[in-house]
């Protein structure tokens, strides 16, 4: 996957740092460059721009889920039928996914999860803290590899690398997008 193919409308990451507000667009461009035409999501404020972009794309089939583990199974089905899928959720949803992750882990289905973090940086809601703390160890315990992006400048390389590992090397990858990058939730 060429660098040139990855970034079409976002600024070139080599020459200009992606501004904080632009990283969802950069992820969208990476997904398009990897020919991802299928996605599932449980909404999160941190993913709202990316969800809008993917929902508006007539080449992408979108599924809104009632609970996050549904998307793990849907992604496996899409791959059985020849399509690459991406799964968007907040860190609290990772806990819902654990047993369902048996499927991609044991069957070696490509899986790319993009997880926006709560409970770890400037968090005001104590209820977000336990699952925020458990997100990475829980994923690793079931066999999903975790990669983190904590600054806007990390996002492109991290998501590109994760997409290569998932779709190229049949790995199960979760990219945790740090709460520091997302900023404080506004009320």
């Amino acid at each position, binding site marked *: 996957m060429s660098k040139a193919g990855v970034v079409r409308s976002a600024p070139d990451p080599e020459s200009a740092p992606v501004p904080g507000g632009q990283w969802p667009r950069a992820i969208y461009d990476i997904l398009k460059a990897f020919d991802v035409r299928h996605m599932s999501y449980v909404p999160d404020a941190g993913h709202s721009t990316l969800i809008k972009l993917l929902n508006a794309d007539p080449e992408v089939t979108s599924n809104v889920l009632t609970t996050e583990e549904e998307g793990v199974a*849907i992604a496996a089905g899409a791959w059985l039928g020849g399509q690459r899928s991406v799964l968007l959720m907040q860190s609290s949803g990772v806990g819902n996914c654990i047993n369902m992750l048996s*499927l991609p882990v*044991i069957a*070696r289905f490509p899986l790319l999860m993009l997880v926006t973090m709560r409970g770890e940086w400037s968090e005001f809601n104590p209820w977000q803290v336990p699952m925020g703390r458990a997100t990475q160890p829980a994923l690793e315990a079931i066999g999903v590899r975790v990669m983190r992006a904590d600054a806007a400048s990390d996002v492109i390389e991290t998501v590109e690398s994760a997409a290569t590992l998932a779709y190229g090397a049949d790995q199960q990858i979760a990219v945790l997008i740090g709460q520091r990058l997302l900023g404080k939730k506004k009320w």
Partner: protein
Amino acid sequence: MTSSPNPAFALSRRDAVKALLADRKDTLVVTGLGSASYDVHAAGDRDDNYYLWGAMGAAALVGLGLAQAQPKKTVLVVTGDGEQLMAFGSLATIAVAKARNLVIAVIDNGHFGETGMQTSHTGRGLNFADVAASCGFAHTATLTRIEEVKDLARGLGGAAEGPSLFVIKVATENPPRSLPPRDAIFIKNRFRASLDLAPS
């Protein structure tokens, strides 16, 4: 222990699933863990069967992803009432996804057959056809006779307005197990090869 015989749960599950698959042509089949996988395997192993051995609640959703990726094929999910109960919300997700080429057959014996035959929610009165209809499925019905199953089988692959769910009431029994391969990578790659897709 099982409840007293109920005439609504009279079909042999093996006969029902065999009849359901008798005229499937190029319909892709996904099976839920447990008896549904054994029933489909007993009806004849095929490369375009995708058997689940775990990930309870996955069957209908694997079917949805597959149906979306293969819009020209009909995808038939064959699963049990217990497996579908674990993915209750999936009926909402599938209904709003409006996949016309997805058909779910719930082989409903009203019990959790793999774990000691405890009475399930459907055995206590819940009807999945009603639930699916409320969610917005285009076609739903509860079948109790083999002729109805044969009619459904003949109609597979026909035009649909949206996703379909059929409950097939079957007797509470444990026929001899007919075990599909447990190697999940083999089953995945065999299935993909049947669609002319590379292993990875």
